[in-house]
């Protein structure tokens, strides 16, 4: 024990888990603005299926942390209505897979109302969606459906990869006058990272370069950005200098950051957990191929996406169906060496 512990030393790096960071963002927003309220299945007394809302019901009461019936369409519709009438609902869909039940309200209503009413109505709602595989939760509780929503004008879709970004982006989402969907990877909830105290924002629509490199560009978001960054460190030991871009936001997408990177590295790999076909990788590949960056490609673009199967329950198969760090390593080696 140091004798200096009595001194009021502010810890240089305060670490929180991803789930704690989200809870902190919710608390900050709720304290700052009484229009903000939480809405969802088991978000109250139980504290959320993944413990994200935790003790918020005790701090803000059952009027602002509301347990709902098991009816995603009903919850989403109530949230849209609340948002139009001036509230700022933050909705939790217990597993993002269940959002299929709420598609009508999110896609046909929330995304379009502002446009169809010429801006006279707006829908400042946030939908939190725990998603992704790796928890042995099988095909109906493990999907990555973010690309479905990134296809819809009028929605914003974000996928923070770190506790720092989760807090800052959720606060930006709550500020936003438009519907924002935040896809939170279930495996990230327990990951820890530095989270500044107090109120701060991480902008929606801006990617982050997690590692600068010259040999190839790896683009990913959420847990894939984390795996790509880990893979890049191993690649560096082998002499392959990978640049890692954490997309953070799918709609709007930060094409400029990707383009600048590919212009430099001449090689692009997109890694995403959603099913490979018709997914994020297709969109980013096409954006590059359509742009003047096409002329800077020195190898075919590589997509590393989820397998074309409903996610298996068997944990070995489940892992095999989704890009893992080793898959990124193998594909990156091939791409950098020119074997791809």
């Amino acid at each position: 024990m140091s004798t200096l512990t009595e001194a009021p030393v502010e810890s240089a790096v305060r670490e929180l888990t991803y789930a704690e960071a989200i809870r902190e963002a919710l608390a900050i927003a709720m304290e700052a603005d009484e229009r903000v309220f939480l809405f969802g299945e088991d978000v109250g007394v139980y504290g959320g299926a993944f413990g994200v809302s935790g003790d918020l019901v005790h701090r803000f009461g059952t009027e602002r942390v509301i347990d709902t019936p098991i009816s995603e369409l009903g919850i989403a519709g109530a949230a849209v209505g609340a948002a139009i009438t001036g509230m700022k609902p933050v909705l939790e869909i217990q597993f993002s897979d269940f959002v299929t039940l709420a598609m009508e309200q999110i896609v046909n209503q929330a995304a379009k109302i502002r446009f169809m009413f010429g801006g006279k109505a707006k829908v400042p709602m946030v939908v939190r969606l725990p998603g992704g595989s790796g928890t042995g939760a099988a095909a109906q509780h493990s999907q990555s459906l973010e690309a479905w929503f990134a296809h819809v004008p009028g929605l914003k879709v974000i996928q923070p990869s770190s506790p720092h970004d989760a807090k800052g982006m959720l606060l930006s989402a709550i500020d936003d006058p438009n519907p924002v969907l935040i896809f939170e990877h279930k495996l990230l909830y327990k990951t820890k990272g530095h989270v500044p105290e107090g109120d701060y924002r991480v902008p929606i629509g801006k990617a982050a370069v997690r590692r600068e490199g010259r040999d190839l560009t790896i683009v990913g978001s959420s847990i894939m950005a984390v795996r790509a960054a880990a893979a890049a460190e191993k690649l560096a030991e082998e002499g392959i200098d990978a640049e890692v871009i954490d997309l953070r936001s799918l709609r709007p997408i930060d094409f400029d950051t990707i383009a600048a990177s590919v212009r430099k590295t001449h090689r692009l790999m997109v890694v995403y957990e959603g099913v490979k076909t018709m997914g994020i990788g297709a969109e980013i590949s096409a954006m590059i191929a359509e742009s003047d960056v096409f002329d800077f490609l020195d190898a075919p673009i590589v997509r590393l996406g989820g397998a074309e199967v409903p996610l298996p329950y068997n944990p070995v198969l489940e892992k095999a169906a989704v890009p893992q760090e080793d898959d990124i390593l193998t594909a990156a080696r091939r791409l950098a060496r020119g074997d791809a």
Partner: protein
Amino acid sequence: MPVEVILPKVDMDMETGSIEAWKVAEGDAVKQGDILFEIGTNKAVMEVEAPASGIIRNLVPASGEPIAVGTPVAWIFQEGEEAGEAAEPTAGAPGTSLAVGRVAPQEGPLPSSVTTPTPSPSPQGGGESGAPMNGRHAAPTADGIRATPLARRTARLNGIAIDAVTGSGPRGRITEKDVLAHLAQAESAAPAPVAARAPAETPAEGELVPFGPVRRIIASRLAESMRVAPHFYMTAQMDMSALQALLKRVGPRIEKAVGVKPSLTVLLARVVGGILPRHPMLNASVEGDAARLHAAVNIGIAMERDGDLVVPVLRGAEGKTLAELTRDFGRLREAVASRSIQPADMRGGTFTLSNLGMFGVDSFTAIINQPESAILAIGRTVEMPVGRNGEIVLRPMATFSLSSDHRIVDGVAAARFMADLREAIECPEVLI
């Protein structure tokens, strides 16, 4: 499906060739790899091998007349195939459209690159183009070449035909690396002797001299530079008395030490090397939306060789003495003269000097050597009347013209460089 035998491109700047002699006759059975005919280029005669085994049909007689590269000169039929098929062979079948034989050099200098086109069909098998291909258009067009967009772009910017490059990637894919390797080879290869050309009738509009590989690179690079870089120019007259005196004083000592007499150009390289570190934007390159500031000052010296422009690079001019630069430049000049200059000696320049004073040129403006951001053009040193302290005196004056790329160099930055240049030229002691 009959296999087409085309007149292959066996040298990068080759557009036509001639059939000097057939080694097989109509109806002969040949095996893949057998010598079919001798091809003549303006450099050498080489043998062309059979791309497939079968029976030779429809061969074009040997005439020695020029034939366009890619023209079919024979067909190889498999057993049982009808001769009539040759008239309208279809594309898309494996191995037909680009069946160029391997070329075995027979005499003369090795071609700088022997084309080994990859078979065209896609791995999905067949049917990538259902259109029947007229035999006359069966040339190995760019469409059949597997190359990355970056490789094509780099080739385009350097005036290289992509089909002259040998690909090292999967399935023969050409990547940027291959184009750069090809370029390096072309830079070091001697230009082709043009003397052996047939004494063709001189047309009324004058002789047409095709670009050699070096000229092609010069043409494409300088045109590209004028296109992408907004040039602006700044001119100043400077008093050369001090530099002349300095050369007179230290010249003999340096010559004694390193065996080469220091020239005014090298002395100016030393001066520029001394001041450029204070002007980072003039020692920089545009990279996308950014300027790359170079740590080292590598000064290219524009020189002429056999009517072509070559720019060997004096490396590390920011930290070398005049004696060291004189020695380096002596080596480069000798290498240029003896054609042994390596591509590496012409790469990596960060600034260029072009001195035409020895031809009596008063002043001129130069085109920036991309991707550098500036070039300094030097005119002759001549005694001129100038005012000094209220009197007209004669001074050895030279005119310096700086061309700068306005994308990253602004007028004031260029003017500051010129001011520092004047100070260092008129009072070289400031560099000590």
